[in-house]
Every structure is written in structure tokens, then in C-alpha cells.
């Protein structure tokens, strides 16, 4: 069996240090430069819940050919402090190089001792490290300098100049060294890719779908969704408001949506927990709202800056009573963009809550992206104005979908009620009406089922080994399967970009015909496997689970596949 790190076209750079050492800045700069140079990247952030100190890393896997997942072995370790080396030493790949300040006492491994003090001012030492890595990876000096320019964008000229100098000195210095490090093949592409993380892509997808309102209460790892919207609010005409709490956030979104603005919220498990009553409200009043839940390890506050996939069942059943919903689970940065659009479409069409379930790993991971085409915007039709009054907001229809007008934008009055209501929206205690309304609402499930994004199969037809995944683990699972295949086992993957509703005919044959099926989930109890069983009776007998806060890697999966399933 081959390992991910043995792929000749990929290598992994890990930059580690304390919060406050400028790690994110230089890593992003490096990523951007790599992407501009045409490389593919998977750049994963791993940080502690503190502002200064602690231990953070930015792991940049870079390749000349497409890649989809982070990897474990480190080829180039940039240790901004001594702690970094100690922690990551066990992960060094054969032939790895460590970059560290010349004052650090690092032995037994190939190390490049850099005289940072001589190369840069104290505050620009991080940028010198950036230059060193850029040079080693064979990036042109100008590529890094241009990336730096866009970063400063004309602001702080002094700091910018200081940083430029640091890069320059790094390149000059390294020219004089003999650094033995395997080079990547030159990248093949000439397209102009962009670099996005999952949350940015999600926000941009929402903007393309027409989002006009977002309310939020800050919560890691969701906050960068509203921050991205805020950044572009001026140009896109979006109203984004920081609410007093999450309950307010979702109720504001519901109010804005009722008044016609495509609306969303973004939060994580604990914040979402506070929104649960209002999810039910959106279900009852049939108000569209897109809810981004960026998962992190729980229960309670848990590990605020790490990743997990343990809120699937919670989100699926959140809210008292029964009403339709859809849960989209993007498996890549591209899917964040696409499914964000779909979420708004479904929310609008089926008039209720639609979820985007992501996690810290996907939210924070940067990828190179071919700019999305924006010419197929989802359709937000002006609701047809019924001409025969009285207008009935909740008219009983065959599809369960009733004509939705916007208060103030028609001659009609629009009445919505969280109590059970008549067709015209007014409170009722008529128990026949109750029954009809329950059925009307649930009837919308049929339409939602017809629009499900079906699971994506990849790999050998009639595989002996089938790996089932949902959400952010897609890349790692697909790479793991590729490695298994390279080892001679017929392997396939089934990725679910949508976990609710489930349409058994999309996947049941695939499941039942594979001799070995393994569910890969970032939780401790196999939630999705349980859901598959609840809906189909099919029991997935094997699991690869992860619940230590870190994302899946191909290596992690390969180590845990059931014995005998790989050749």
C-alpha cells in the first residue's frame, strides 16, 4: 500500500509557532503565492483557543497535480519556536528539512539554521521565514513580493517595506546556502486560480444566491462567514448585523426574510443550540432561512478551535415538532460555494429552514479554486400576486407549497403565526385544520426529496471496499481510496453532499452490493451510519471514527480500515 506522502508531486510544509507570531499572515501569503504560481494547495489551520502563546500550526500541502486532503508526514517544518520542533518531530517524513532560528539547538535531523536576527527586524522575522520557504520551494521572489503588496494594499507603507526587505534578505541569504530539498515539478496550469477557504466560499456562494441579510453572534469557527459578507457588504448591498445573542440573530433573519430579504445566520454548535426554538418557528411560519452550522468538538464549549462532525443528529432533529428541512454537507471548498447557493434556492422554494453543515476543518482550509462562473444564478421569482382576495398565505395545495407574498410589497396583508393557523395565517384551535396543516407542511418533503443532491460515487465499479462519507472528510476519504486502489484493491467512495432528506434509491444498491462498507465519520458514535440504518435498515458494519479534534487524513483512515479489506 502506498502512502499519501509518497506521492511524488506533493509535499507538505508545516509552519508552527505561538499565536501572535504572525504565523497566519505568512502562511496565507505563502499559500497565495503558491496558488498564483499555479500549484494546488490544501492548507489546514490548527490553532488553540487563545490570542497569544500556545501552539498553532498552518499545514500547507502543495502539489503540482490536484490534491484533496491534508496529509500527516511533514516535508518542510518551519519551527518559529523550539516547542514546534519538539511537537512535530515524530511527523517528519524521510528526507524532511527543518527550518529554525540559528539559536535553536536542533539535532539529528537535517536543519537549516537561519540567522533571523540578521535577516530582518524583530517584527519582520516571520516574513523572513516566509521568504526562506518561498525560496526553497522555488517560488520567484517577485511572486511573494506581489502577494505582499496585495496584502498591505497601500496601507502601512513602513511595515510593508520592512516586510519586503525581510523577504529580499531571505532570498539573498539562501542563495548563498546549499539547501538539499526535493523540488516539486513545475505546476502545469496557466489558468488564474483564486484562493479561498470554506467559509469564504460559502459566503461568496450566498452572495451569488442573493443573500441580503445576515445576523450573527461571533462564534468560532463560523465567524468568518459573516466577516466575509461584511467585507463585501458595501459593494453587494448586504445588511449584516451583530446581534445581542444567537436567539436574536436567527429571529432577525426570520424577520428580514418575512419582509422579503434572502437571509442567513452562521454559528457553531452551542450558538446553534440557542437557535433551536426558532428553527421550529421558521418551520411553522414557513419562512425561508439558511442556517450555517460550522461544527467544532463539543459537548458544551468543548474545543472551540478544533474540528468535529458530531452535530448531524442534533441538527437533523433540532426544533420541537415535525416540519421539513434540508441539510447540505459540503465536502470541499467548491461545494461550499455550490451548496450555499442551493441552500438559498431550497429555502426559498420550500419556505423553511435549510442547513449548511460544515466544520472547522473545512471552514478554515484554503484551497486553490478555479473562479466560479456566476452566470447561472438561482432564480428568485417575484411571487405571483393572487388576484382574488382574500389572499391565503397558507393555502392548502398539492405540493404543500403556498403562495408567499411579502408584507408591504403587495396590496395584500400577510399574516404569519407561530400558533397553528388557518389558511389565512390566523391563530386557530380547530383540530381538523390542525391535521390538514401538519400534512401540508410535511408534504413539502416530497419536493425536497426530488431535489436532493445525490451521493457521489467515485472509484471502481463493483468495489470490494466502499468508503462512505459526508461533509468535510470527502477529500481524505477519496485519497485514501485512491491509495487502496493503487495497492490493488477494488475500492470506491460514496460521498454525501446532502444528508437530509435521504433518498434510498440513490445509494442503497451501491451499499448492499459492496462486500465491505466502512463509514468514515468525525464523531464517536457513527451518527450517519445510524441515520442510514433508520432510513433503510442497512447496517454499515465498519466505522472509522475520529473525535480528537483533528481532521481526517488519508493516513488516519488507511491505518484504521478493517483488516483484510485492502490487498
Amino acid at each position, binding site marked *: 500500500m502506498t502512502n499519501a506522502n509518497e506521492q511524488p508531486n506533493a509535499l507538505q510544509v508545516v509552519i508552527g509557532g505561538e499565536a501572535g507570531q504572525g504565523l497566519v499572515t505568512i502562511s496565507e501569503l505563502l499559500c497565495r503565492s503558491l496558488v498564483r504560481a499555479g500549484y494546488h494547495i490544501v492548507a489546514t489551520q490548527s490553532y488553540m483557543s487563545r490570542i497569544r502563546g500556545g501552539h498553532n500550526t498552518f499545514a500547507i500541502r502543495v502539489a503540482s497535480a490536484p490534491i484533496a486532503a491534508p496529509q500527516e508526514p511533514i516535508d518542510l517544518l518551519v519551527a518559529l519556536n523550539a516547542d514546534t520542533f519538539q511537537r512535530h518531530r515524530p511527523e517528519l517524513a524521510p528526507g524532511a528539512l527543518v527550518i529554525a532560528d540559528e539559536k535553536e539547538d536542533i539535532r539529528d535531523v537535517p536543519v537549516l539554521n537561519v540567522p533571523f536576527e540578521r535577516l530582518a527586524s524583530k517584527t519582520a522575522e516571520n516574513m523572513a521565514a516566509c521568504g526562506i520557504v518561498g525560496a526553497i520551494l522555488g517560488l520567484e521572489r517577485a511572486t511573494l513580493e506581489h502577494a505582499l503588496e496585495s496584502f498591505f494594499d497601500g496601507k502601512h507603507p513602513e511595515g510593508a517595506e520592512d516586510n519586503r526587505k525581510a523577504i529580499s534578505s531571505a532570498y539573498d541569504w539562501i542563495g548563498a546556502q546549499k539547501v538539499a530539498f526535493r523540488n516539486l515539478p513545475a505546476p502545469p496550469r496557466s489558468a488564474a486560480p483564486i484562493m479561498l477557504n470554506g467559509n469564504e466560499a460559502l459566503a461568496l456562494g450566498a452572495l451569488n444566491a442573493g443573500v*441580503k441579510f445576515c445576523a450573527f453572534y461571533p462564534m468560532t469557527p463560523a465567524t468568518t462567514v459573516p466577516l466575509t459578507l461584511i467585507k463585501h457588504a458595501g459593494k453587494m*448591498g448586504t445588511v449584516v448585523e451583530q446581534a*445581542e445573542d444567537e436567539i*436574536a440573530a436567527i429571529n432577525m433573519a426570520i424577520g428580514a426574510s418575512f419582509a*422579503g430579504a434572502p437571509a442567513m445566520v452562521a454559528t457553531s454548535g452551542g450558538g446553534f443550540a440557542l437557535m433551536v426554538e426558532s428553527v421550529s*418557528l421558521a418551520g411553522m411560519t414557513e419562512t425561508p432561512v439558511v442556517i450555517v452550522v460550522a461544527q467544532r468538538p463539543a459537548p458544551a464549549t468543548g474545543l472551540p478551535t478544533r474540528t468535529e462532525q458530531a452535530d448531524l443528529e442534533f441538527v437533523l432533529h433540532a426544533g420541537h415538532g415535525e416540519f421539513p428541512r434540508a441539510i447540505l454537507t459540503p465536502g470541499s471548498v467548491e461545494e461550499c460555494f455550490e451548496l450555499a447557493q442551493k441552500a438559498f434556492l431550497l429555502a426559498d422554494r420550500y419556505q423553511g429552514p435549510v442547513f449548511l453543515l460544515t466544520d472547522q476543518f473545512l471552514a478554515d482550509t484554503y484551497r486553490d479554486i478555479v473562479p466560479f462562473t456566476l452566470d447561472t444564478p438561482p432564480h428568485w421569482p417575484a411571487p405571483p400576486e393572487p388576484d382574488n382576495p382574500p389572499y391565503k398565505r397558507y393555502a392548502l395545495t398539492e405540493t404543500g407549497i403556498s403562495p408567499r407574498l411579502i408584507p*408591504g*410589497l403587495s396590496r395584500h*396583508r400577510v399574516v404569519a403565526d407561530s400558533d397553528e393557523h388557518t389558511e389565512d395565517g*390566523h391563530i386557530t384551535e380547530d383540530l381538523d385544520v390542525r391535521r390538514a396543516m401538519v400534512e401540508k407542511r410535511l408534504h413539502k418533503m416530497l419536493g425536497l426529496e426530488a431535489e436532493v443532491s445525490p451521493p457521489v460515487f467515485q472509484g471502481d465499479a463493483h468495489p470490494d471496499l466502499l468508503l462512505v462519507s459526508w461533509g468535510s472528510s470527502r477529500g481524505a476519504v477519496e485519497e485514501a481510496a485512491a491509495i487502496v486502489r493503487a495497492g490493488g484493491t477494488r475500492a470506491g467512495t460514496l460521498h454525501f453532499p446532502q444528508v437530509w432528506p435521504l433518498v434510498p434509491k440513490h445509494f442503497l444498491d451501491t451499499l448492499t452490493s459492496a462486500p465491505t462498507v466502512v463509514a468514515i465519520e468525525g464523531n464517536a458514535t457513527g451518527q450517519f451510519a445510524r441515520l442510514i440504518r433508520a432510513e433503510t435498515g442497512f447496517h454499515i458494519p465498519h466505522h472509522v471514527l475520529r473525535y480528537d479534534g483533528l481532521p481526517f487524513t488519508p493516513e488516519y483512515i488507511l491505518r484504521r480500515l478493517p483488516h483484510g479489506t485492502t490487498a
Partner: protein
Amino acid sequence: MEQPPDTPVTLPDYGEYETAWCPGCGNFGILKAVKQALVACQLRPESVLFVSGIGQAAKAPHYLNANLFNGLHGRALPVATGAKLANRALTVIVESGDGCLYGEGGNHLIAAIRRNIHVTVLTHNNQIYGLTKGQASPTSMEGFVTKAQPDGVHSQPFNPMATAVAMKAGFAARGFSGMPDHLAGLIQAGINHPGFALIDILQPCVSFNKVNTFAWYKSRCRDVANTHDPANWEAAMKLAFQWDDWIPVGILYKNDRAPFESYFPACAPGPLAEQPVDRNALRQILLSYA
């Protein structure tokens, strides 16, 4: 039924409906005053959005002909805030009970005051939880006895006027359901105030509040209009605490802070629902991520 938009708005435009309230309830006076105020403001029903929570008071907007979002207990204010931001042209009125607005929804009240969003809040303050059959509300007086508080209430009552004035709310007024004409005037002034307006309305609950009855309020409530300048913060603060033989009703405090929605350029051109998606701008934005 549909009138051309230039016809004057009259009371029948707001309709007459059967209610689920107890005979003699103070809510009737408030309903009357609200309709009167809407007519006085010459607001067409389709341009008015009521947002309410849950409780006896929160049913009120079902009994007139306007747009309505009757949401969750305690959550009327954020819904109203979202709706106002989505469409500045709507007249947004929140109507709910003291439990809903000062209890479950307390955090939103504070935030709404701080924002100064142009929303008019009508609190039916009966100093009791009516719909759930008579537990103490945040405004129940100390010592007030209920089935849930058999030894009397031990918490100090929430004083909505004192808090609003201390927080320099845009507009703070107290009314009494037993003075519907006076109340209609307050509501009209509140709606026309271009910012957040809190109108706390004393409302007898004949079924559960046997202390703060119609007679109790009636003998205490007197208007301050002729003797008080609502721009005078110190005087307003004094009046906010005036609660014994005399309970002052009227506009206690008012200022002219800019309304919250005026800070959002996106709100200016018209309803968000009618703003196109500028995909050229978005394309430029996408490329800026290179």
C-alpha cells in the same frame, strides 16, 4: 374592500374581529387606541407590520387588519428589527405582554434601545402572566401573591420607564388602557418618532390581577403633558420612579438620535427584497481572492 391608495384611511379599514379575551379585559382599550392611532397616522393596513410574541397581549394584532408576524414568546423585537432593516418603508409595531417583552425577551429590549431602531413597542403591562394563568411577571409588585408565588414576589419589579430613561431610549412613554384617547395620542407620537419608542401600557387583567385593577390604575393615572418636558432627562427619571398615589402617564422622555437603519447604506434604496444581485461586482470580488 380594496380602496384606491388616495382614499383617507378610516377605522373600518382596520376591521372588527372576535377576540379570545375575557370580558372587561384592559386589552380592549388598547386595541381601540391602536386602531385610532393608525387612522390618525393615516397609515394603510398593507404598509403596517405588527410583530408580536406569545401571550394574551400578543394576540392583539390578530384583531385588526394589517400585516402580522406572530412569533415566539419573547422574540418579537429581533423579528421586528430584521423586518425593519429589510424594508425601511414598513411601519413596524411590536405588541406584546410584560412577560414577553420584559421577561423572556429582556435582552432584546436592551439591545433594541441601544440600537434605536425605528420600531414602536406597545407593552400590554398587566403585571401578570395572563395566558399561563397568573404567575408573577417582571412588573408584578413586591409581595404580590399568586399560585406560583404564594409568599409573594421577592424580586424588585422591573421598571421599564426607569430602565429606558437610564439607557436614553429614543422615546419612552407610559399609557393606560383605561384612557384610550390619551393612549392613542401616545401611540401616534410613538409611531411618528423616528427611532425606538417604548410605550408601556398599564392594563388591568380582570382574571388574575386583583390588586392592580381598573379602579386602582384609574385613580392613579394622570397625564404629565402640561407639566413635563420630555427633553428633560432628570425630570423624566423622577417621573419614571413615580409610582404611588400618582402614576404619571404621557411621554416621559424623548431624544433625537438617528435611527439605527439610517446607518446601513443598503437600506436606503428601498426594500432589500427588490435590490438586484450585482454579479459584476461579485465577479470583481471573486478575482480579488487571487
